[in-house]
């Protein structure tokens, strides 16, 4: 049955245009049509958060969207956080420094949720961090190290920001 529909999206800044079945989930579109396998599928019904990506700059569950619904949207996946051979970004490095991942399966979802969170929350409290990650499940770390990683990342980002404002004021 060919009832394929045209989908045009920007994925990590690159335009992607494909004909897909309407039932193709956005996660599968990203993984199989765009060959970006950093976005993981855990539960496929909205509970675990492993598939979290940014659609038009907002974190959403990519397993609860059909690719066709994203037509015309701007998508960012975990691959957008650093270049393939480049250094880790601040949040990624903080995860690494603090053992905020063990198996790493949940990590892309956490990173995308937190990337958005840290934009609006420069100096988050522990409670705010816990609330922010309440939609992401991790079976390994027990969350404590993830919280530490976010605190470290927030500090570094704040420092970087005040340094750069000093520079620009000079």
């Amino acid at each position, binding site marked *: 049955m060919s009832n394929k529909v045209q989908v045009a999206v920007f994925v990590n800044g690159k335009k992607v245009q494909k004909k897909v079945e309407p*039932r193709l989930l956005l996660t599968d579109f990203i993984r199989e049509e765009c060959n970006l396998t950093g976005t993981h599928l855990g539960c496929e019904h909205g509970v675990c958060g492993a598939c979290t990506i940014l659609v038009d700059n907002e974190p959403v569950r990519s397993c609860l969207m059909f690719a066709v619904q994203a037509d015309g949207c701007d998508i960012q996946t975990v691959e957008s956080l650093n270049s393939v051979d480049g250094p880790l970004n601040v949040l990624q490095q903080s995860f690494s420094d603090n053992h905020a991942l063990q198996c790493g399966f949940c990590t892309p979802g956490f990173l995308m949720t937190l990337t958005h969170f840290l934009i609006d929350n420069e100096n988050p409290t522990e409670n705010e961090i816990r609330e922010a990650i309440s939609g992401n499940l991790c079976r390994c770390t027990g969350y404590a190290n993830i919280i530490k990683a976010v605190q470290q990342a927030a500090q570094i980002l704040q420092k970087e920001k005040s340094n750069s404002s000093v520079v620009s004021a000079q």
Partner: protein
Amino acid sequence: MKPAVFSYLRPTNLQEALMFLEEYGEDAKILSGGQSLIPTMNMRLSAPAYLIDISRISDLNYIKLDGDFLAVGALTKHKDIENSDLVKEACPLLSEAIRWVGHAQIRNRGTVGGSIAHGDPSAELPCVLTALRGEIVIANVDGSEEVLVPEEFFLTYMLTSLQPDQMVKEVRFPIIPKESGSAFLELARRHGDFGLAEVAAVVDIDDEGHLLNVKIAVGGVNPTPTALEQVEEYLIGKKLTDEVLRQVSDLTQESVDPESDLHGTAEYRRELAGTLTVRALKIAVERARGGNNNVQ
């Protein structure tokens, strides 16, 4: 887990959506935010032949004052309610409740119309609407509209009076006067999960703290959200003494018939409904007394 094959329709205005509903109603499902429908499709609990994606109908996304009501378009997202100063002003109960709806990622996509149409008995918005005695505006395919109250709309567990060729167009939350106090309380295993029980309450008091007016509903403990009419009547003219609150708890527990599941037994949920009702009333009265119904 993959959804079954379907044909995808994307109307750009209400009229077109209604036309599709007229043509495919029985075999079609409306897709709004997809946060409840897509999980069931992924699990193949639902396999509609047509999906009518209404999410791009832009004129159904609004929050505005309309007479005594805060009128919310069906496509308004949960996160828009959460961020709205108008909602905070006009219906703080709704501002307080919305934060209990799923997680931020869910609230970024889920819609008010979808939440009402889904009819989940433990969902927060139906509970708030029931407490406030709000209204649901339904669009028929012939262009006519109907206005239903929650009691008429929510029939039982996940079942509403909505027909296959009808659509929820607007949800109308009565404006809460400044001098009233309101409170929304819920207990869930983890914030963002569906509640084990939840309570929405609004009260007016006189200078001595006697209750003049009480509206209260519970969710998650009956097949539909339930207005606690007995409690409301009982409380008129009374102060919240220990004895009165004990009676409130008993009356609440008599009005609910929860089921046991993985997350809690029926007995536990029944008691919880009583306890949360008492706590919600205390907080609502406190807020009315302070003349400050601001929700933090």
